[in-house]
């Protein structure tokens, strides 16, 4: 049983890394081993290796951590945000050594200082929710950049919606 797990694990790691080469941004849905092409590397890893301590273990990689978004002047977690956070929690569980810094950000509207506080609340809200899902708070830290680091420099709702976010940065 134990050996089985190790094999399966190594196989998945290889698969996942292959899959993420092409689509690093968008989180890949949990890779299905059956759909994956059986390529050369698989056979090589298959051939009796005993390595177990691999970073980026399980069916997720660090790049599966996905940013979440918020409504204007709000740090309430919407259902879509909670869904993404649940996935991020799974990533954290799948990669035991992983620590993340959750960065809270705001759009350019509102006062700079208030947005520093609001960004922190967004980061904390995300962290607290992931804690309730079983991720140890010792593996997460928060920082707020307020409106200082917009993802999109635009001055309209399209950009603002992108900028109201919490980012997950592996440490």
């Amino acid at each position, binding site marked *: 049983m134990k050996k089985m797990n190790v094999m399966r694990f190594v196989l998945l790691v290889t698969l996942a890394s292959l899959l993420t080469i092409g689509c690093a941004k968008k989180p890949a849905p949990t890779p299905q081993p059956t759909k994956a092409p059986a390529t050369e590397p698989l056979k090589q890893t298959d051939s009796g290796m005993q390595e177990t301590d691999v970073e980026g273990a399980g069916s997720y990689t660090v790049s599966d951590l996905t940013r979440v978004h918020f409504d204007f002047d709000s740090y309430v977690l919407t259902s879509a945000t909670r869904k993404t956070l649940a996935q991020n929690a799974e990533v954290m569980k799948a990669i035991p050594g992983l620590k993340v810094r959750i960065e809270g950000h705001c759009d350019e509207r509102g006062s*700079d200082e208030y947005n520093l*506080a609001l960004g922190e609340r967004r980061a*904390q809200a995300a962290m607290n929710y992931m804690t309730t899902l079983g991720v140890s708070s010792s593996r997460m830290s*928060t*920082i707020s950049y307020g409106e200082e680091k917009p993802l999109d420099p635009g001055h309209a709702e399209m950009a603002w919606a992108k900028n109201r976010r919490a980012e997950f940065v592996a440490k």
Partner: protein
Amino acid sequence: MLKRIAISLTILIGLAVPAAAQIEISSPGQQLIPLALTEFLPLDENVRPEIAAELHEVLEGDLDFSGLFDMVDPEAFLSDADKIGLISIDVAFDQWRLLGAEVLIKGAYSIRGEELVVEARLFDVNRNRLSAGRRYVGRLTDLRRMGHAFADQVLEALTGFEGPFNSSIAYVSDRTGNKEIYITDSDGHNDLRLTDHRSIALNPDFSSDGSEIVFTSFKEGNPDLYRKQLASGVEKRISSRKGLNVTARFRPGEEEIALTLSQSGNTEIYMIEAGGRMINRLTSSWGIDINPTFSPDGDRFAFMSDRQGNPHIFIAEIGDESARRITRNGKYNATPAWNPRLDLIAFSRLENGLFDIYTIRPDGSEERRLTFGSGNKEHPRWSPDGRFIVYSSDADGKRGIYMMRLDGTGVRKISSSGNCQHPAWSPRR
């Protein structure tokens, strides 16, 4: 520049007359005082027209911005404008009365090497007498400071309150690609970068004596509070508590600083010693409490809080965690600034997607809107005499530093390049 600040400007004689001799303004608040501003003349053979021109420019800029004066056209000046008249018996007051001038500024300069001496006089034309006189001795590089200092004396002689122009503005600009702290004269000259953090520096504030600033910087990763001596450039991180260390304000006349921390997991305002040691917490609510600003006596502070839902301006006493809301209108009121002399609090309100600047009494009465038109006008801060406001505006596309009078008139831009924000007006030098 930092050294220059330390250079003492010797005032050898103070000829200011007591307040009882102030010029009477026939209908205060309405009528402008007709002022004749003459060119300063050389005291000896060393004639330097550019010195006179720069003094004139400084004085004219400050006095015009004060909004108190109606400048008499120099084209109309008669022969007395070409004569040095530093004592009243040497002035042909009749000529100035003929032109309708009520006050007259005359002056002279002399230069020896790098040393500059400026004699400046303010005369009351109707009473044939001196209202204020100053001799400034310094270096050539102190020229503009001498002009600003005399403009401040002119305001004191005519209104009873010294002007604010011999002072500096600290602000944030991204012109290097990173947000750094800058300092400039009150009219935007002598611009100088103070920090080299290559990170994000925000929200400077001057100590009561003007010798230091505090500001927030992400230099070490976290938004920490730094304190910097202007003369020596020595800089120290004084608060690096977990979370936010932001919106610091020196308590008037004290070695104490109010700042916003989130170390408890909630955003609250605290008082710390200027060295960084904790004194106590000033606010307590579930909401975001931020942006403290002290009353002139330092016993009360206004701040922004969303404890009742929308962000509003509140006032609390030091040592009393209960707070009173003073803004009733609007849904987003931010960045309060308590006037250092008058019973007024300036703040910015977000309405229909744009910030504009307002004033309100500490009791919540007499709310007044000061800015209109396109762009965001934010972060109002008062001049040390409380008659003027420095703020940021992006009406021109880029964010710049602007000034206006407390009634919203006289708008002028002082910052040069990059996006500029978070101005703070220093005490007088």
